[in-house]
């Protein structure tokens, strides 16, 4: 925070009970009537307040087209909070929050509205003591980014007064290829300096994802085997059981790989594969992540080692599901992928020769995100073949969601007089026991934005490196063939299974 912070006699590093409270500040949400804002952002703000992590006088400004008064907005937030917040509703917390709630009505091209926003911010600085510190959350489709950002610049909202800060928060997608990502970055960075821009990848706010670093670098027993000498391959899966829902307009033409692999899965891969950072600060982390993303090598034959698919009609979890091409608003000839599986290598000493299989898809068996580090078989087994017939490969599985936790799979003797060894799993149920009080990803990320802590936000270079990895694959898909079909409710197209079978491996059933 500020220099004053260090001088505060009530602060003491040894005093671990005192939480990190954001300094005086406010949050401006553009597109406040949207789903994300209602289901995630507003409840997260309330939960933060409820945990006592927001500064007194925190301000929340909604900006949208709808003709609302401050009270209507407050009512909307109230409903959203009651419905979606994780912590119980408490009147006094609400009373604290409501005093700083404002609504500004307008279009993004409306100069008056932005002037009004500016006035509102000034008014809040006086009434609530927000000290000119404001974060602008752009919860709007990317096509509006340039306009909003330019408006912020035009009305001098992006320039922080002396001693204050202004920050911009943007959501994925960060472009749809390297070129558009660069354009977007240029637009945003023209107004906000790189360290003022916070890109939200909500996966990075999840406790389990942060726990990857704790697991790897706070422990002694995992890191020694976390390399090519012991690891056979790594599978990173993010499966959804839902279809595209009402997002046809956004989804068609983007597809699973751009929607998920580019950001979430490559981030998970970076965290799994990176070297130990020199420290846990943002620069050191980004340096290591960028290094490993830069070392990613694409397969030689893209048609063999990448697979894309589209779900066809089928039954998903007891419900009949239409195929992707039959979804409302989708071009029946669309080549958009709803499933993507790719094999990547990492060219460094630790990982040479170890494939990373990344897959994601909609309408798969169930909703699950996990990282499975699969180990090689024991080099020699004193047990005879029949004894170990049922023994698979050892694995450490980090379950990102749901049911957050870590599973270790290893062989164990089946009780009985004969020697028979079978896989068992040892489970650490991180989620089951801790979720109730652990903060939601958005809570953590919003708090970090207000604190200016950039640890959990991908930087420009990471975004560009990720596109660098994905662009050739997308290009290859564009030019060759059509997506494979897979029945809704299954674990993807057979082509994906064949892709692993060629390497003598198979997908884990997550």
């Amino acid at each position, binding site marked *: *925070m*500020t220099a*004053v*912070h260090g*001088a*505060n*006699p*009530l*602060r*003491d590093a*040894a*005093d*671990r*009970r*005192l*939480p990190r*409270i954001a*300094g*005086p500040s406010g949050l401006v949400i553009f597109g406040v009537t949207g789903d994300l804002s209602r289901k995630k952002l507003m409840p997260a703000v309330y939960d933060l*307040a*409820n945990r*006592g992590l927001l*500064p*007194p*006088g925190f301000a929340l400004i909604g900006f949208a087209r709808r003709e609302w008064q401050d009270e209507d907005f407050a009512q909307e937030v109230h409903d959203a909070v009651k419905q979606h917040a994780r912590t119980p509703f*408490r*009147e*006094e*917390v609400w*009373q*604290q929050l409501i*005093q700083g709630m404002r609504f500004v009505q307008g279009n993004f091209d409306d100069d008056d509205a932005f002037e009004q926003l500016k006035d509102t911010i000034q008014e809040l600085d*006086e*009434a*609530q*003591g927000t*000290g000119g510190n404001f974060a602008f959350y752009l919860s709007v489709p990317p096509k509006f980014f340039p306009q909003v950002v330019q408006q912020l610049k035009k009305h001098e909202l992006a320039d922080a007064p002396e001693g204050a800060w202004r920050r911009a928060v943007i959501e994925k997608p960060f472009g749809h290829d390297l070129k558009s990502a660069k354009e977007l970055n240029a637009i945003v960075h023209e107004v906000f300096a790189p360290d003022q821009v916070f890109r939200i990848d909500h996966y990075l706010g999840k406790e389990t994802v942060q726990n990857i670093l704790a697991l790897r670098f706070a422990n002694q027993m995992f890191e020694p085997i976390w390399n090519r000498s012991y690891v056979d391959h790594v599978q990173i899966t993010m499966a959804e059981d839902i279809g595209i829902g009402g997002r046809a307009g956004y989804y068609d033409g983007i597809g699973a790989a751009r929607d998920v692999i580019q950001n979430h899965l490559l981030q998970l891969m970076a965290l799994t594969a990176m070297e130990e950072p020199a420290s846990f600060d943002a620069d050191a982390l980004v340096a290591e992540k960028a290094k490993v993303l830069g070392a990613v090598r694409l397969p030689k034959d893209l048609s063999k080692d990448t697979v894309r698919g589209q779900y066809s009609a089928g039954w998903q979890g007891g419900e009949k599901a239409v195929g992707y091409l039959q979804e409302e608003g989708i071009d029946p000839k669309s080549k958009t992928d709803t499933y993507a599986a790719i094999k990547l290598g990492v060219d460094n000493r630790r990982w040479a020769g170890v494939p990373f299989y990344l897959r994601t898809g909609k309408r798969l068996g169930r909703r699950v995100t996990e990282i499975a580090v699969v180990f090689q078989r024991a080099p020699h087994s004193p047990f005879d073949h029949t004894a170990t017939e049922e023994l698979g490969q050892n694995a450490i599985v980090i379950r990102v969601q749901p049911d957050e936790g870590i599973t270790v799979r290893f062989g164990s003797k089946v009780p009985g007089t004969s020697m028979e060894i079978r896989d068992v799993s*040892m*489970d*650490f*149920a991180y989620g*089951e*026991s*801790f979720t*109730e*009080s652990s903060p939601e990803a958005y809570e953590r990320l919003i708090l970090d934005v207000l604190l200016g802590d950039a640890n959990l936000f991908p930087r420009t270079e990471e975004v560009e490196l990720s596109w660098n990895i994905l662009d050739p694959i997308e290009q290859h898909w564009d030019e060759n063939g059509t997506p494979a079909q897979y029945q809704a409710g299954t674990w993807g197209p057979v082509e994906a299974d064949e892709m692993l079978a060629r390497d003598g491996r198979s997908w884990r059933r997550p």
Partner: protein
Amino acid sequence: MKIDLTDTTASKINKALVQGRRAIGSPAVGMVLTLVIVTDEENAYDALRAASEASREHPSRTLVVIKRVSRSPRDRTSSRLDAEVRVGADAGTGETVILRLYGEVLNHAQSVVLPLLLPDAPVVAWWPVNAPLDPAKDPLGALAQRRVTDTYAAEQPIHELTARAEAYSPGDTDLSWTRITPWRSMLAAALDQVACEVTGAQVEGEEFNPSVELLAMWLAERLGVPVKRTLSPGPGLTGVRMETNCGPIVLDRADGSLATLSIQGQPNRAVALKRRETPELIAEELRRLDPDDTYAAALRFGVDRLGEPVVPEPSVDARDEESPGSGSGPSRGSAAEGGASGEDDASGKGGAPGGGDASAKGDASGKGDASGKDGGNTSGTAKKAAAKAPAKKAAPK
């Protein structure tokens, strides 16, 4: 599920635990600590409920040690251990064993508890009432890394605080200290916002609430300035005022839930500062199991160095205005007292100016406390406070 064992032993209880776990088909146990609650029958229910709520955040094995009173000499010589084993849905997210000790085994409770501790996991002992004066030397306390007492529940809380300070060993902690975490964090946050030097402070709260003393001692220890205590009807803590060289910082909570933070030169702000229930306190307590050095430092500052608590004059609503005269030890209080302690004080602070203030305040806010705080909103009051500041600083010199 629930298994009742009468006249039993620790090893039978262990067997029942395994059996219970098997019966409900729950696999590996992910419990992170053993919580030993030492209590009497009256307080067992509430304590256990708090623990099982806290166990959602900290899956644990909870051992409730209930010492039964023996009412006849025969009872005292015989000895019996009854146990109730709860696993699964009946026990929050962990396992619970309720141990009832009769007769001689009362004095050897540790022999029952020791075999039931989770391997390798930390042990926390909690006495909701009747905590031993030296928890670390208590046979059960000696098994624990962390010993949680609650002076709030004591007959003579302030007296007990002093005893705790003398007996302190690393790992001791007290729920009256846990209760003030939100206050401490809000006060720290308030100081983050200004670059001022604190010259004095005042803590106001109900009588027989050791949180008042702990907060005052913490402030005194961290800030190195005199800190006063003032009594109020409560509930709990009702206010803290820090005098700084750029005006007072006041955190005022009259109703036990919503507080007002006023900082010189900044608008008043509402702050949710609800009094927390025991489960939340226990959950916070279990979050960190290393010794709490800040608590130790605050506790060791010593209640006697704070001076006697001040009872505000009932007729004049003067506590906001006058008592933070702080700094000046004996001189504070009524004008007559001020006069007795020295000419400087009397002329600088007591007498006319004090009376003037009190009446001004009375005019402005006839409704008493609450409206007085609201009155702080108006710039008039702020200016008044600013005008008073120099006078106050002059007093101690």
